[in-house]
């Protein structure tokens, strides 16, 4: 059952990425995602549902500053597919609803992985998602990791 779910998810992700014409670039790379935070505690681990809630504007009570990559980023596509479980258009629709009803604020976006890593390294409380293969400085804690590939 678990293998079937992983296989289905892999098929869905690969078709999705193929439809955005990125397949040739990613076939040989690790598409797993890690969620990292600049916090002191080593005790916190998050479930997929908690990560989804966090990146969709809910507070988990840890005073995190959520940061993300822009829609054009392949890492964001991986994250949307594996963790949020929604396509980019529906995520943008959700944020449009939140913005124009004054309910929630979209997380800060930073242009690329390098700048994002630098921001999170130097900002206490910042949390974001990165490719699993990213070399992390020791003070960043991994709160969640996908295991789909």
């Amino acid at each position, binding site marked *: 059952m678990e293998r079937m779910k992983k296989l289905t998810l892999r098929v*869905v992700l690969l*078709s*999705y990425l193929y*439809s*955005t014409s990125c397949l040739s670039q990613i076939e040989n790379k690790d598409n797993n995602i890690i969620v990292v935070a600049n916090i002191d505690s080593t005790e916190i681990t998050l*479930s997929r*549902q*908690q990560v989804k*809630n966090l990146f969709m504007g*809910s*507070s*988990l*009570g840890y*005073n995190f500053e959520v940061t993300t990559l822009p*829609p*054009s980023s392949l890492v964001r596509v991986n994250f949307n*597919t594996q963790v949020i*479980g*929604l*396509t*980019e*258009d*529906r995520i*943008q*629709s*959700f944020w*449009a*609803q939140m*913005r*124009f*009803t*004054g*309910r929630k604020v979209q997380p800060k976006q930073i242009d690329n992985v390098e700048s994002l890593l630098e921001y999170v390294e130097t900002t206490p409380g910042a949390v974001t998602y990165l490719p699993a293969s990213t070399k992390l400085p020791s003070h960043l804690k991994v709160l969640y990791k996908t295991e789909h590939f």
Partner: protein
Amino acid sequence: MSIYLKIIPIGLCIFAGLISASLKAETNSIDFSGFSRVVAGILDDKNATYKEYDDSVSFAPQSLLGIQVEGHITANWSVTTQLLAHTSNEKESSLNWLYTTYQATDALQFKFGKLRTPFFNYSDFKDVGYAYPWISPPQQVYNGFLFDSYEGASASYELVEDNFSINTEAYWGQFQDEITIGGRTVAADVNQIRGIILSIQFDNLKLRLSSHSGNANIELPEITGFADTLNQVGYSSMANQLETAGAVNVYQISLNYDALAYFIKSEAVQISSSILVFPDIDSYYLSAGYVHYPFTIHATFASSQVSYSRTQSTIRPGLAPELDTLSSAFDALYDNLVRDNLDSIGIGLRWDFKSNMALKIDLTRLLGKKNESSFFTISDAEAFNHKANLVQVAWEWVF
């Protein structure tokens, strides 16, 4: 004078004052954002119009531009205004929202000011077409017939657990403006508008339950005049049935499922009132969509049943010609009340061709009921068979 003409200068002055105060404060920023839609539609029938659409292509009914300005006064306080410009003849361009937000904690938020009434899933952002898959949310539920804004306060609290989250929202306020009921635009004074909304999210499933009510006083001088006449001739029980003030109650439930490649949306609504001329409405829709990014196709079935409390004249026939006339008029009143019973089946396609922009096409088969208006404005009742097809295309943009 329209209430908006009164609010706008006051609101802008307050807003300008707060903004200039904030520009002197340390924590300050002003954010501009907005949304726009260009919508064209055509109805394939020359004997009626539907939502201002007739048998020639028209861009006016639903195209609009919304601008939102948000000023951050402190880390917890902000002021937001949203201005809306419509091309439609039936809608005034106006101040859509004007409120201040106090974010007490990450989970608790208060808003004060002019706010959109959050009756149903899409009620308070119905103008932001980009935010939902159809061009128009199903008319049977989202017919804009209730008081769509209020002046007051709202509070919302979110509880987030490992596997689920619950959002509770409550609001209270009043409304003094025009509403459209039974195809007519009338002045309404609604006080003690209040509601509570519970949203529960469990993985991909979202349940929303809400209950709303208000005390409405609707200006219908011909009904009030008729009631006065009935009182004068001693038929107060009949006059009392023509009361234009009373309670309006609204109940809503929806269940949505959102997976990566597909979604299901369903919503059911019940509106009831003690006011005779305010219809009792039961309506619902069921929608399913398939997503193959950047395309979404969807199909929707929707239905509304409208009824009115049955009234009948208690004047004995033959007492006097004038009384017979009054009696017939009273019975005719019930028969002539507008009934918007409508079934519809629609399919649509959405293409997210660019970030923050989408193109949509919707085809809707409207299945009205004989001898009823079914949301149509009928120009030739003899020729119209109460069925028509509506085609709409739209370009949506948020910025």
